[in-house]
């Protein structure tokens, strides 16, 4: 009898142990997503609208502007603010993005003798940090625009503060779809959301690649499942058929069974929302599961050198999305300049290097379209600048930047890549 009890005890221990099985592989290849902490009280300060100090007469354009003007005397710099995680676990994102924006500001000749300067403050990647940085930024009268913030939570907390002060924002990396749904006039972003990506993927699958029957798979995570759901809904809306929808457990070594079940439904392509680690295992078992002639279509979590390295010949022909722009002369020149300036390859710290460079470019273009000099002082009408950023029409490294009415500015969407001879090649360059 003792033995039986002992067994039951052991089995309970085993079940408990397996319940807390370590998440085998964690990765942060995908868009920056972080804890969505609720910020209860965002301190919003009334900013002195009249930043003109000595009481001298303001130009008419400033008096007409809803938020007044930023007044920048000779010898000062035009400041662009940034709230970014510069220290701690996520510092690589903040450092990379601040360096990308710095490159844009450095490569510009300045405006009528005034040069640009980036003022980056640490948010720690948190909502509280985001609110604190925003409140600090609005007290500096020479800060005219904000590049950022970087994480969605910290951006969310900062938007109301900048909204009151009339500081236009352009975030290269905050992907949470809700951010642009709150009716803020100042918030814009260059990052594409997961919804955009799913839409673009479904469109590519149905309209350009001509598939009518696909399967959707995901790893059960918020990011992966979210993408797979968007693709499924969009693809069906376009008139295609989603013949199988299957989830896998991330971090396992054998996906032959779920893949075989998907193969049995006869899809022409399989969309996968999830990270490279699982996509690699799946790709290596592709033929085993009877998916020989079926395309694997991944997301920006799937994209990366690791995928091509570890799938070898098995990965040939797979497609994935990425926010890394395709190579162009400008990109090559930028990469070289970045390497020289910071001693790092562009994209080594995060995938946002290029979009942050474009963020800087967009803000400079907007400032130059509204700023004017009078009596040796530079005036930047704040309200006009907010509109100018929203009305951006800019071609950068990442393609066309043109904002819609809610501030989604990534007009070109993700870039899709295909594995050709063991390397990711932009889809439009693949000749077939």
């Amino acid at each position, binding site marked *: 009898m003792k033995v039986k009890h002992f067994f039951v005890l052991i089995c309970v221990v085993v079940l408990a142990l397996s319940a807390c099985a370590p998440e085998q592989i964690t990765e942060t290849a995908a868009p920056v997503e972080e804890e969505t902490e609720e910020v209860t009280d965002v301190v919003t300060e009334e900013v002195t609208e009249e930043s003109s100090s000595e009481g001298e007469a303001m130009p008419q354009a400033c008096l007409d502007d809803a938020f007044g003007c930023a007044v920048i005397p000779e010898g000062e710099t035009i400041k662009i603010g940034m709230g970014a995680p510069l220290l701690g676990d996520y510092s690589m994102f903040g450092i990379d993005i601040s360096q990308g924006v710095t490159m844009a500001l450095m490569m510009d000749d300045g405006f009528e003798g005034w040069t640009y300067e980036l003022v980056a403050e640490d948010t720690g990647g948190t909502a509280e940090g985001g609110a604190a940085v925003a409140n600090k930024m609005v007290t500096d009268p020479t800060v005219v625009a904000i590049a950022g913030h970087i994480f969605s939570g910290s951006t969310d907390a900062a938007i109301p503060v900048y909204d009151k002060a009339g500081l236009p924002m352009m975030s290269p990396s905050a992907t949470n779809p809700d951010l642009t749904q709150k009716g803020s006039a100042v918030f814009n972003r260059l990052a594409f959301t997961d919804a955009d990506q799913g839409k673009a993927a479904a469109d590519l699958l149905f309209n350009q690649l001509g598939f009518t029957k696909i399967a959707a798979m995901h790893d059960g995570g918020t990011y992966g499942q979210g993408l797979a759901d968007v693709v499924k809904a969009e693809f069906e809306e376009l008139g295609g058929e989603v013949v199988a929808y299957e989830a896998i457990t991330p971090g396992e070594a054998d996906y032959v069974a779920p893949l075989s*079940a998907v*193969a049995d439904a006869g899809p022409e392509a399989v969309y996968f929302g999830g990270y490279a680690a699982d996509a690699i295992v799946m790709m290596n078992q592709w033929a085993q599961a009877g998916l020989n002639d079926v395309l694997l279509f991944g997301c920006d979590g799937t994209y990366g050198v690791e995928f091509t390295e570890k799938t070898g010949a098995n990965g040939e022909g797979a497609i994935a999305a990425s926010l890394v722009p395709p190579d162009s002369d400008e990109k090559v020149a930028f990469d070289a300049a970045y390497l020289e300036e910071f001693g790092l390859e562009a994209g080594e710290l995060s995938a946002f290097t290029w979009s942050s460079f474009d963020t800087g470019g967009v803000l400079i273009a907007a400032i130059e379209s509204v700023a004017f000099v009078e009596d040796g002082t530079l005036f930047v009408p704040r309200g006009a600048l907010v509109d100018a950023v929203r009305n951006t029409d800019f071609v950068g490294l990442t393609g066309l930047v043109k904002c819609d009415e809610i501030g989604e500015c990534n007009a070109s969407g993700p870039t899709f890549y295909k594995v050709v001879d063991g390397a990711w090649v932009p889809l439009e360059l693949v000749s077939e």
Partner: protein
Amino acid sequence: MINKIKDIKLTSGLILRLLVGLIVVIYLGWRIFQTAFSEGTYGTDTWMRFLIAGLVIGGMYALIAIGYTLVYGILFMINFAHGEVMMLGTFAGYFILEAFATIPMPTEADPELMFLNARPVIALVITFIVGAGVSALMGYLLEKIAYRPLRGAPRLIPLISAIGASIFLQNAAQLLFGPQRRQYINPDFLWRGTGWMIPIGDKSVMITYTGMFSFVLSILLMIGLFILVKRTKLGKSMRAVAENKQAAALMGVDVDSVISKTFVISGILAGSAGVMWGIHNGLFNHYVGFIPGIKAFTAAVLGGIGNIPGAMAGGMLLGLLESLGPALLGLDFQLKDVIAFTILILVLIFRPSGLLGEALTEEKV
């Protein structure tokens, strides 16, 4: 009075078992009926793929499960660090294969040729010997350091020690080798994703070379173990120690050395399974032994712990259940572990001694 209470207890237990049994039978019948008659049934080729995947993974579970059973049979303890013994075998095999892939052996036809592909069989044999050797050494040390000092302690104490050893080894491997995923470099003829194509109907099913290789090797190792236990002097003394330590000692069997050798044998099997895991599945990191360890323990209990054929059958059965179960029941494939552990609980309710029964009877304990 006492008799009466005993009677009531028995009947309530019986009723509970009957109830659970009834629910399970009705549910299974309903699900299988649904799968069989709904439109979503899979084709023959798909069932073949499930079957093949199940057999390959089952073979590896069986090898690891034997390690649990051997140790339990002799010491009546569960060696929870067994999965980590396998993990170290996987790492050892990886480093050897990686080294072979960088030793140049140029020929006239191919100046780029490396030892790995020039002498693939020798390379694989050495890899398995080193992988199994490292795991065997680890098993030996584990017993010496973590279990032998606790030989006389109550049974829960070595169990805790085993869990501690498991966590220690996992973290040590992470510190030594880093947390990143690595991938096995196979010789060309065993490349992952290649295999024989078996035509079934108008489709064809692939039996991968790595899968076939792992399956055949695990069967051979199991036959080898069976012969060792049944036909050799060491096997005889192992059985004697399992039956009664004191009596075996009185008969002149060196109990300590037999226990050490048992750990070495289970380490050899786990190490081989670890190298197979790497060759067949490719990607691994320091957590590679954790889940297979838990699954293999389940397999050992399923077949009847302490019973070697039971562990083999349990491993195979668990592998098949995992790949066929969700399909048969028409459930999500994410639920395969739920199915496997539910089966374990059911077996414990209806046959606490496992499917093939424990090798020892209760009076012996």
